Structure formats: C-alpha cells, structure tokens
C-alpha cells in the first residue's frame, strides 16, 4: 500500500467493526448468502422442501425429485462459490501485501493464462472433460514456476521483476491459447466460457478436489499474516526486524498461487474478485493482515455465491460476467483514487 499513503496501512482497525460484532456480522453475511444460493435458482423450490432436501442429504436418505437439485447441484455449487471466492480474495490480499501494490491480484504471476492454456489444450485435443481441470492445474502451476525462474536474481525475487515476468509469461501464454482456439474449430465457445469463469456442473467431487489446495494455500497465508504486516514498513526495516524477506515473498507467492490455481482450474478465470474484495475489506475493517485475510475470505465467499446466484437467474449467465461488470467500474474508481 505504500504507493499511495503509508498512513492507510498503519491505520488501526476501526473500533465499530472490530471483535465480536464484526465476526458475527460476517458470519451472518456468509450464512445468508449460502441460504439464498441454496434456496433460489432457475427452478423454484419452496423453502420447506429445500430444508427437507438438505436433511435427507445429510442423513443419507433416498433423494427424489427436487432433492437432487438442492443436494447434488445447488449446494455443491454454492460451497464451490464460497471456496473459490475465499481463495481468490485471500490470495489477492496477500499479493497486494507482499508487493505493497494495491493493484496486485492473484493472477499477477500468470496463473490465469497458464490455467486457460491448460484448459484450451484439453478442449482442443478433445481430452475427456474430467481432464480439463487437471490439465489447467498443471499448466497454472507451471506458469508460476516459469515466472519465478525468470524473475530470480541469485537468491532474490525483486518485486518489480516478479511483476514484469508475470506480465510477460501471461501475455505469451494468452497468445498461445488464442492461437489454439483459432485452430480448434467449433470448440471456441467452450474455451470462452471457461475463460469467463463458470460454477456450473460443480459437484461434491469437484469441491473435495479443490478443498485441499485452498485450505493449504490459504492456511499458510494466514500463518504469514504477521510477517506481511512487518513487510509493509519496507524491505529494509522488515529485514532489520528479523523477517526473512525473500523467503517470505517466495512462500506467499507460492501459497497464493496454489490456492488460486486449485480454484480456477475447476471453475475458470473469475475476474476482479481477488482485486476488489481485499480493498473493500481494508476500507471496512482495517489493514492488519490477519483481519484482512479472514474478512476477505468471508466477503469473497459470500460475494461470489451472490454473484453466481445473479448469473444463474438472470441473462448475465456467467458468474465471471457478473463479477467483471460490477468490478470494472470499481477498478476504475480505484485507479482514479490512486492519482489523488
């Protein structure tokens, strides 16, 4: 955050939004989002039936009719939304902290274009549909590895070099994907919908596959929160306070990339969430990283579930379109504020 006002980064948490009321408020928001997301959809199901379906699902009874919609389609889709929204937001917040740059987002090091390239390859080569996420995951992590290798100076990973390498790797991989799409005849729509992000067809198995990546990446980031706070004082100061700056940077970048890669591999590249949510959290709850990452996770999870609900029930059709439509103006507003 030091590009603008260092004072903001040092601002204490706002008292009105601290402690128990904040935790309760965010928990309530998340619960409301999950309830709405599970209760509403293109098929109208009365609330009593939704509750009954959840009960029958939890207790492992026979599912019939609308139960299947609630338990096998909507709930995993909502849980996936929470996981992906949280992963992107936490990773975005960590990236912004580690680069001390308010415009950093989880896709900074080429995860998105790597993921898209893997997905495009799988689609164009007509691999089975289950292979798409796996292929995307491998290329996403590969893209980050290439970025890190390009940015390395001995044992150091200077932030500017990391960002520039990420941009270059991202551009090259995007160009490769585009070339593949243009050769891939009539499958362009499938690739396009992947690059816009879509939570459709997320089942319990997908949720369980994504969970470890998000939990591992997000968990490590939370453990590093204090060190990220110290890093806001500048590399030199942080070093003199005993923070291993280079190792910290590498660890944050890797953890955030693992969480992001796991998330986008299954649902595609959902834009703007990882950029915006940390800013909202910072404005509302302050800039201490432990608070920031936790509140970002709750806001991002709830936000993506609600965005997906809009996507499912309106003509906006894809969650990535919703987040980008709402996120674009915010992003511009943020840019304007940077100039002041």
């Amino acid at each position, binding site marked *: 955050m030091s590009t603008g006002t260092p004072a903001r980064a040092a601002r204490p948490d706002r008292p009105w939004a601290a402690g128990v009321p904040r935790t309760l408020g965010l928990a309530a928001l998340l619960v409301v989002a999950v309830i709405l997301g599970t209760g509403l*959809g*293109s*098929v109208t199901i009365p609330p009593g039936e939704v509750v009954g379906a959840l009960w029958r699902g939890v207790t492992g009874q026979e*599912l019939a009719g*609308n139960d*299947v*919609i609630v*338990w*096998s*389609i*909507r709930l*995993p889709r909502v849980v996936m939304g929470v996981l992906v929204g949280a992963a992107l937001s936490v990773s975005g917040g960590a990236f912004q902290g580690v680069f001390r740059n308010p415009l950093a987002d989880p896709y900074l090091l080429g995860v998105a274009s790597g993921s898209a390239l893997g997905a495009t390859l799988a689609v164009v080569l007509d691999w*089975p*549909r*289950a292979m798409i996420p796996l292929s995307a995951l491998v290329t996403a992590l590969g893209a980050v590895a290439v970025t890190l290798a390009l940015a390395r100076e001995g044992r150091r990973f200077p932030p500017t070099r990391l960002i520039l390498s990420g941009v270059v790797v991202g551009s090259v991989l995007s160009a490769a994907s585009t070339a593949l799409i*243009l050769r891939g*005849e009539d*499958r362009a*729509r*499938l690739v396009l*919908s992947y690059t816009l992000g*879509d939570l*459709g*067809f*997320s*089942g*319990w*198995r997908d949720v369980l596959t994504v969970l470890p990546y998000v939990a591992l990446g997000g968990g490590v980031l939370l453990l590093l929160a204090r060190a990220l706070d110290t890093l806001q004082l500048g590399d030199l100061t942080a070093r003199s306070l005993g923070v291993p700056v280079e190792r910290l940077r590498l660890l944050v970048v890797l953890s955030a990339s693992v969480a992001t890669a796991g998330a986008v591999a299954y649902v595609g590249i959902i834009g703007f969430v990882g950029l915006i949510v940390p800013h909202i959290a910072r404005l509302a709850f302050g800039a201490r990283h432990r608070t920031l990452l936790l509140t970002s996770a709750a806001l991002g999870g709830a936000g993506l579930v609600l965005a997906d609900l809009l996507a*499912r029930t309106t003509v906006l*059709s*894809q969650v990535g379109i919703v987040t980008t439509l709402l996120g674009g103006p915010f992003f511009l507003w943020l840019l304007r504020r940077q100039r002041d």
Partner: protein
Amino acid sequence: MKILTLTTTLALAGSAAATTYPLTLTDDLNRRVTVKAEPRRIVSLLPSTSETLCALNLCERLVGVDQYSDYPAQVKNVAKMGDLYTPNIEAIVAAKPDLVLVSKYGKVSETLTQAGITVFALNPETYDEVFSKLLTLGRVVNREAAAKALVTTMARDIAKTEVLTRAAVNKPTAYFEIDPTPYSIGPKSFMGVLLTKAGARNIIPESMGDFPKVDPEFIVKANPQLMLGVDRKTAAARPGWSGLNAVKSGRVIALPVELSSSLSRPGPRLPAALRSLARLIHPELFR
C-alpha cells in the same frame, strides 16, 4: 403449415427466368450489392453456401472456400482461404473472384469491398430462411430454376420424414446439447424446428431464446426421456444426473460427427440430416 410457407416462398420468387445482369439486391448486411455479370469465379466462406453451390451444379466455379467447407468431396480439392474471422485476404484477392459469399459475421466484407471485389452476405438463420436464402443465392448466380427445383425436392423429402414422425405414438421429451457448457437449442432455432419435426418434444421453452445457456438444475427438473449431443458416460458423471430418466434408460445419444455437422448447416443436406435424427429418436418407424 411449413409446406404452405414454402409454397408462398416459391410463389413470391415468380417464374424461374434467367437472371438479368447487372443485378442489384440487398444482402444480409443490409447493403445494396450490384452483381455485374454472371459470377464465374466464386469464393464461398460458409460451409453451407459451398454445399448449396455444389447442389446447384456450380462446384467447378468455386475458386476458394473456407477451411470448414468439407462437403461434397469435390470441395476438398478447392483452395482453402481461412474463415470468416481469420480470412486469408491475400489469397482471396489473388484468386480474382467475381463474387465472394460471406455471412453477416466476421469483418471480411469491408476489406474485400474496398479492394473492389463484389461481396454478398447470405445468412440463413431460421428454418424458413434456409429456403428463401437458397432461392436468393440461385438468383445471384443465375441458377434460379435449379434453386427452385432443389427447394422443392428438399421440401418433399422433409415432408416424407414428417409424415412418418407425425404418426409416432410416443414423442419423447428431449434435451439437445450443442456444447457441454451446456448450451442447448430453442424451438424457434432451425435446429430446434428439425428436432420437433423429427418427433421429439424439446424441453427448452421458446422464452429461453434460440441458443440458450442452460442451468443444469433446469435439465434435472425437466428430466427428459432422451438426451442428444452428449454421451451417456459424460451425462451420468454430472452432478445429480445419474438418476435422470434418459441416463437410466440409456437413451443418451452422442451424435455422429457427420450428422451433427449436417444438422448445424442450413444447406441442402438438411432433409437427410432430419431423416437420420428421426431414425435416432424413433428407430421403430424405420424398420
């Protein structure tokens, strides 16, 4: 009903006389295009247009086609010139065509028009347009009589299949997948019209549009008896789909490549495509 529309289309076309050039018509990009003389060197950038030209016995006048044109076999020997979105402009200009046929998509028309080449956009999108645009093409290339004969033959062959399927006792509810996102087809799209004619009841209502993206839970709710355009293994693996009627009864049919290509092309192979589709939906009628 449809037969009537066709008769009107034919009646409107007047008697089949030789086209008098220069001929000025409004094309599907809403441009007034003047064709100076009967086209002898034609480039077609739409697979269905290439098929139609060959059906009008003009295959040998094709000096270039788009990369997706693959039918009839003769077309495979014609020079490939990219497609609507990535046209090989230099190759097209070098072929010295006196007519380039495009659709209303892509940006190829402006560039070529500036290069002084006659470009005509033809874009059959609805079922009725398949026939009316075919007649227009016939006029443009001075094959009006042949175009009318072709339309009449197509209408007759379609009617033959319709007579069969109309007699079908059980018309299954069907979900037709055109892409695994999933996208499906509405009853007003020309593929949707064919699905209905083939004796199925489309689960997609008209209100969802011609090529809607479908929420998976909607398909589960509709619980169709038949699924087309997806294979059983894929369908069964989707969350909540394993218990659907079509999956349980095994009526999930991935279309052969040739059928899905001829079904999606608004050209002269539609009657044959309809017959194959009807045979998949009602094998009992074709024994």
